[in-house]
C-alpha cells in the first residue's frame, strides 16, 4: 500500500511574504497543498517536533483517541502538557482538534489528513522521514 506523506518544506520568511504579494499582484492564485507544511528553517521544525509530539502523532494515528483526555492516558502523560502539545501541533497544521460540543469544551484530536509518514525535505535535496504508523 502506498504511504501517505506529509511533507515538511522550508522557505525564508522574506521569500514567503514576497511570493504571496507577487502572486496577488499578478492575479495568480496560490493555494498550499494539504499535504505540505512550510517552516522557515530546520531548527524551528526540530524544536517543535520533539519525541513526545511524535509520540502523540503516532498515538492519534494508531489509537484514534476520542478526546485529548483519553490521548493523555494513552501516552501516559499529564493532561495539561498533552493539551499544550496538541494546541501547538494544531497551530502548525499537523492535527485538527474538533469540538465535541460537551459542556467541558472537550476536543477530539485527529491528523490533519490521513498521513502515515512525515518527510522532511532539507534545502540540500536530502530528506529524512518520521514514520508515524504503528
Amino acid at each position, binding site marked *: 500500500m502506498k504511504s501517505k506523506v506529509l511533507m515538511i518544506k522550508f*522557505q525564508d520568511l522574506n521569500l514567503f511574504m514576497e511570493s504571496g*504579494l507577487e502572486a*496577488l499582484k499578478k492575479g495568480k*492564485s496560490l493555494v498550499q497543498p494539504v499535504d505540505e507544511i*512550510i517552516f522557515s528553517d530546520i531548527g*524551528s521544525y526540530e*524544536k517543535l517536533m520533539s519525541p513526545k509530539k511524535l509520540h502523540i502523532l503516532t498515538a492519534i494515528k494508531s489509537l484514534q483517541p476520542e478526546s485529548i483526555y483519553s490521548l493523555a492516558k494513552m501516552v501516559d502523560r499529564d493532561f495539561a502538557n498533552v493539551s499544550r502539545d496538541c*494546541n501547538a501541533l494544531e*497551530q502548525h*497544521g499537523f492535527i485538527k482538534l474538533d469540538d465535541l460540543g460537551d459542556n467541558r469544551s472537550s476536543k477530539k484530536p485527529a491528523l490533519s489528513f490521513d498521513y502515515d509518514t512525515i518527510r522532511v525535505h532539507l534545502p540540500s535535496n536530502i530528506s529524512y522521514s518520521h514514520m508515524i504508523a504503528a
Partner: protein
Amino acid sequence: MGKAVPLLKRRYSVNERFTIVEDILRIEGSGFPGEIKASFVLLDTSLPKARPRLLVDNTDYPHEYHMHTGLPEDKYSKVFLGIFDHVEALELFYSEVRRILNEE
C-alpha cells in the same frame, strides 16, 4: 452568494512559536469590495489554546480592513485601516508581523 474561489490559502511556521495563516477568497455576489473576503492571522503557541496574536480581516460590514489590536484578551477592539484593497492589507499585516517578531 456564488462559489468561493481561493486566491491565497497558506500556512507558514515562522518558528516553533508563531504561525502565519492567510486566507483570501473571491466570492461572487458577496458584497465584499472586489468580491474579496480576506483574513490574515498570526497565531502564537505561547497564548492559551494557541489563540491569535494578530488578526487583519475585512469580514464585517462595510468590509474595510481592520486590525484587531487587543488580542488575545480583547476580541472587540479594532483599528480601521482605511484600506479596501487586499494586497495593501496583506502588506500592512506583514509589516506588523515583522514588528512583533522583532520585539519578541
